[in-house]
């Protein structure tokens, strides 16, 4: 009997839950954050989720939102699972989100075709489909400040700099160890192209998602092949394992590069002192010496409104979450400026993101001077191909190594355009861009 009433209750609850959706205040905008604080990728997921939500919370606490419009923040737990991500997408779609920040390449790939139809902008900060940088083909997708292909080209550029020019890459051996999923595969076409162009040999070491914590066979191969440089496209539990294994086979750590997603503090710390020299790309500041981070500390962390572990406050990935939310907030602000509306909708948000212009003055105003480079997006360019820099692990923390430098944009951009055309052809009929280009 009890079981039956339980089932009946469940059915009632189901009906109620689909009928009633939370109502947000009139002068607020709804920003869902896809996060994963659970699952095998939680190690990288938690700091970013904290950074993302803390920055927006700080804006609400300090300024009462953006120009008086509060941000209604809601997390949707995806567990880095594409299926759950699609579910989250459907769930938040009903509540008129301003922007979707899928925070997973797999989920991004799934929502890209939907976004244009549902008219919801997708912000995939430095992840997702590289070709989405071509705004004329993907008007609803944004991947600032740099694409994966920019990242891969930046690593190759840095290697070339150390070797004395791109010509010296000839005959070198570069290993690529990657998470065997959409995310890790994203950079392969570019690296293959580069290896033909510059004459280096590329060896691939895929790490299946299930085997992330057991990479001994891949590293055995690395030991056998002795590549001159290693590039890693890892995420979650894969990163600390790779760093540990690299230390174990005594791979020269200063020749081991990670993309920006392989640069969590916990990732490198797994190798301890021996991981000294491990390098990853970065596009924002590390540590808490920035006014904006201090504000977050004051208004959010010290006020007990954050989930962050104080010891991990302002670490590399946390700051990346802050950067991600800054892009969202600046998109909203820009949209308000351009439309004159206070409470904007998703179509306005798209225009805002497309005309995003974070210059030095604005960075200073936000307390982000030196935290990030300037960023300007346009209708054709949804990525910005931002400059990056290399950070090096000193055994305890990340240290900036060398200056900001540009990815090989002039080589990458035509390849992106070509890839966008290919995507368009493979997904025919792909809708032509109808959104007018607002120039200012």
């Amino acid at each position, binding site marked *: 009997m009890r079981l039956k009433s339980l089932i009946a209750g469940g059915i009632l609850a189901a009906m109620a*839950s689909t009928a009633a959706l939370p109502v947000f205040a009139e002068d607020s905008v709804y920003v869902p954050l896809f996060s994963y604080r659970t699952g095998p990728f939680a190690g990288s997921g938690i700091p970013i989720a904290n950074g993302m939500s803390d920055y927006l919370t700080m804006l609400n606490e300090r300024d009462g939102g953006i120009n008086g419009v509060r941000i209604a923040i809601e997390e*949707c737990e995806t567990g880095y699972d594409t*299926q759950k991500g699609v579910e989250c997408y459907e769930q938040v779609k009903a509540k008129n989100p301003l922007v979707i920040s899928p925070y997973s390449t797999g989920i991004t790939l799934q929502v890209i075709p939907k976004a244009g139809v549902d008219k919801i902008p997708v912000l995939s900060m430095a992840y997702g489909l590289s070709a989405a940088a071509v705004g004329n083909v993907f008007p609803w997708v944004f991947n600032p400040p740099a694409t994966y292909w920019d990242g891969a080209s930046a690593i190759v550029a840095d290697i070339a700099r150390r070797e004395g020019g791109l010509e010296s890459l000839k005959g070198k051996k570069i290993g690529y160890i990657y998470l065997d999923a959409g995310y890790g595969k*994203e950079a392969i076409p570019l690296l293959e192209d580069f290896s033909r162009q510059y004459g280096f040999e590329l060896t691939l070491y895929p790490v299946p998602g299930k085997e992330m914590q057991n990479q001994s066979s891949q590293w055995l191969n690395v030991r056998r092949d002795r590549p001159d440089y290693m590039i890693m496209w890892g995420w979650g539990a894969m990163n600390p394992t790779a760093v540990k294994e690299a230390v174990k086979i005594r791979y020269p750590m200063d020749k081991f590069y990670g993309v920006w997603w392989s640069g969590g503090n916990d990732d490198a710390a797994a190798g301890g002192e021996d991981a000294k020299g491990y390098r990853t790309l970065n596009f924002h500041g590390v540590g808490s010496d920035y006014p904006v981070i201090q504000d977050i500390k004051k208004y959010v962390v010290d006020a007990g409104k954050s989930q962050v572990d104080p010891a991990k406050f302002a670490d590399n990935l946390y700051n990346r979450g802050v950067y991600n939310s800054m892009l969202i907030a600046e998109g909203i602000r820009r949209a308000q400026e351009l439309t004159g509306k206070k409470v904007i909708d998703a179509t306005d948000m798209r225009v805002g993101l497309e005309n995003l212009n974070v210059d030095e003055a604005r960075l200073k105003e936000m307390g982000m001077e030196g935290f990030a480079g300037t960023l300007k997006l346009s209708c054709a360019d949804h990525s910005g191909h931002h400059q990056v820099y290399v950070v090096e692990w000193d055994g305890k923390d990340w240290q900036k190594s060398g200056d900001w430098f540009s990815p090989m944009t002039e080589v990458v951009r035509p390849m992106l355009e070509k890839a966008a055309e290919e995507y368009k052809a493979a997904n025919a009929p792909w809708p032509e861009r109808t959104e007018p280009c607002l120039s200012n």
Partner: protein
Amino acid sequence: MFYREAGQFKTSYAADQQVFPILQDRIGVAVILGVAIFVVPFVANDFFLSAIAIPFLILALATIGLNVLTGYAGQLSLGTGGFMGVGAYACYKLTTIFPDVPIVVHVLLSGFAAAGIGMIFGLPSLRIKGLYLAVTTLAAQFFLEWCFIRIPWLYNYNASGAIEVPGRDLFGTMVTGASAGSVPRYFTVLAIVILLTVLVKNLLRGRIGRQWMMIRDMDIAAELMGVRPLYAKLSAFAVSSYLCGVAGAMFVFFYLGAAEPSAFSITLSFQVLFMAILGGLGSLVGCFFGAAFIWALPIILRAGPPLIGIPIAAETAFHITSMIVGALIVAFLILEPHGLARLWQIGKEKLRVWPFPYA
């Protein structure tokens, strides 16, 4: 009272052999179909259709597929996710090679690819049974998943390694791809699920289904009575994989919209197995109960607390959901090992004598 059969006489063989011999069942099924066809698509919102109704129907079909094999033919399988994947990848290949053929035809054809693979992996069932067979199907699961990752031809050498569903229309309405609305997708899925459920129901009532059940109940006795295990077991594998393949194709084409190989991981196999066990092995209606229970419960648990004013963080809800679903499955199997279908049966028997608890 509600289920009293007094006065319902059968005067012909046809009347005796119909699918639903009881009038109340016929009315009930008609009402459910009526609601599913005429009410749900017009009343429900986008979220209900896309995130609950469509995956529920698809998973119910996959559960029927597994139930044919495990519930009716007694062959334990853990390879459901892999077979669903075969269907999905086959459908993707078919529709990219023959873009002009209606997508529903491809979906139905892709099941045959899964059936073929299923039969190959069903061959060991002639020699081994029970847990040992479960392990060989588990091998199928891993092998197939490996294929989805490692054979680039399957995903058309796509850089991301995922299959992306192109837009296809049916009678001028988009049913797949991003521009397809939830209502056309719902109708397509519903039509396929109804069609295949009716087919399976009739298959189960007939010679083939009875052979499966004989094999399940006692294979040696069945063999002595003239059932050929080779045909019975392999046909069960074929039909089961066919249904799983169709479900997998629909899962990608009408629900996910794009899929990475991880979408067909062992997790999906387990999910479908839970649905089959919880719904009730050897029962068609149980498949629908099980799918509804396992699919909808986490969504309800996640959406429920905030509705009644208990704010919980997204990941807390996630942890709680895992715990509650796990606990409920254990509790359920202790209280009613025959699943939800058995509960429904008990309910029916009680309704028959209602309002008197005895008789």
